């Protein structure tokens, strides 16, 4: 019964809690039946939903974890990565839209990769936060490594500014595989 109340009142905790081990889940605050104010909801989103790795990255360096050593950090992040049944190379045409639809000037509310990376050379509205991904296939990277980078960049580079898109559920495993194909398939526009 108690469990149900907690689940209801803190539906917002959803995904993040689901990703955490049971020991941490138990720390979730006891829910009272009262309605939460907007400010309380906001604070839950900001602090209660913050996972321990985000916490470790919330120091003024922003890019070096505090309190967890780098190897443990990477190992824990790697353990969160889930793979699609059909392998890490999906359908590049679907991946193109998730990466950023060239017919919409590269916009995409899902991957939104162009915010930080250049890709398809015909899309010029691209950010310079991450490295350019033009001609990515020629770099000889392992598609599995690319998959991990997109699913959970912190498995390779703790506290990276690149969001952990698969880990948070912004992109599903199959969708990430489609993006990996977009990056690695020689016939994809990013490699033209």
């Amino acid at each position: 019964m108690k469990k149900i109340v907690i689940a209801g009142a803190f539906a917002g905790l959803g995904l993040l809690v689901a990703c955490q081990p049971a020991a941490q889940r138990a720390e979730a605050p006891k829910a009272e039946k009262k309605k939460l104010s907007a400010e309380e909801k906001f604070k839950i989103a900001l602090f209660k939903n913050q996972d321990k790795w985000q916490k470790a990255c919330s120091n003024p360096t922003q890019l070096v974890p505090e309190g967890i050593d780098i190897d443990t950090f990477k190992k824990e992040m790697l353990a969160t990565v889930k793979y699609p049944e059909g392998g890490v190379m999906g359908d590049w045409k679907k991946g193109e839209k998730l990466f950023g639809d060239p017919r919409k000037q590269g916009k995409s509310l899902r991957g939104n990769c162009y915010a930080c990376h250049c890709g398809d050379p015909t899309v010029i509205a691209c950010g310079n936060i991450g490295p350019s991904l033009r001609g990515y296939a020629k770099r000889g990277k392992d598609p599995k490594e690319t998959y991990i980078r997109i699913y959970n960049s912190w498995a390779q580079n703790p506290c990276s500014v690149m969001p952990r898109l698969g880990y948070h559920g912004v992109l599903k495993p199959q969708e990430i595989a489609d993006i990996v194909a977009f990056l690695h398939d020689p016939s994809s526009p990013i490699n033209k």
Partner: protein
Amino acid sequence: MRKKIIFASAIAGGVVLTAAVAQQLPDQYKQLLELGMHPGYAYLDEGEDYFHNLKGPNGKTCASCHGQDASKLVGAYAHMPRYYKDIGKVADIDIRMLSCMTKYMGFPKSKDFIKKYTKKYRVPLATYVASKSNGMKIDVKLDDPQEKELYKYGEKLWWTRSGARDFSCGICHTVLSDKRIRQQALPNPVRDKLYKHWPTYRYSNDKMWTMEDRVRSCFKAFLLYVNKWDKKKDWIKKPPPYSKEVVAIELYMKHKGNGAIINVPGFIR
């Protein structure tokens, strides 16, 4: 619409533009500014009008307490946010003015009035009152224990990485400042003491904004949503207006801006 018509009022101080803004500025704005017309001054004029003519239910106006032409508010904005004894907490300009209206002018503390204040009176009045500190240095003191505590909280919030993008204010505005997110250059409000031009007119959405609006929007647009991805349901709402979190971040940024010369209304993308 009214704003557009009345902004013909002349500007005194002129507009200081950063090179980046000057470069991207659409032609119609360049011409306006060359003619000495700054759209933010429509808000300032509107605020001046409210200051003298908006009567509370008890007959008082802002000018009843703060003098004609806000003579007793010269320099006040330079020290905000700060602790106010009469309301017992640290307030930014948005909260301070609302408290004056409900406490001293007889306006009700009702949802309806707060909504009206937020939408209608707040930004013009803040622009007008802030402009009374033009030419002065930002000078936020952290004398009161509540101010010290809130400053620390603001600093913590600045670095708090959270939400489904793993972002924080500091990621975009300290670590990545001067990079481009898509086409948009990321400003560095702390290093560059950008608080000096707030409240500011944003020509990209044709509106005057106070720092409350800016902080809340940055949170909403970039930082947080909860639960599984669902673009309609799961973007968390902004922190509510007048909340402690917003004031804390303002206090942090403005204290970092100490010494910069206030020049309001600003003008940015």
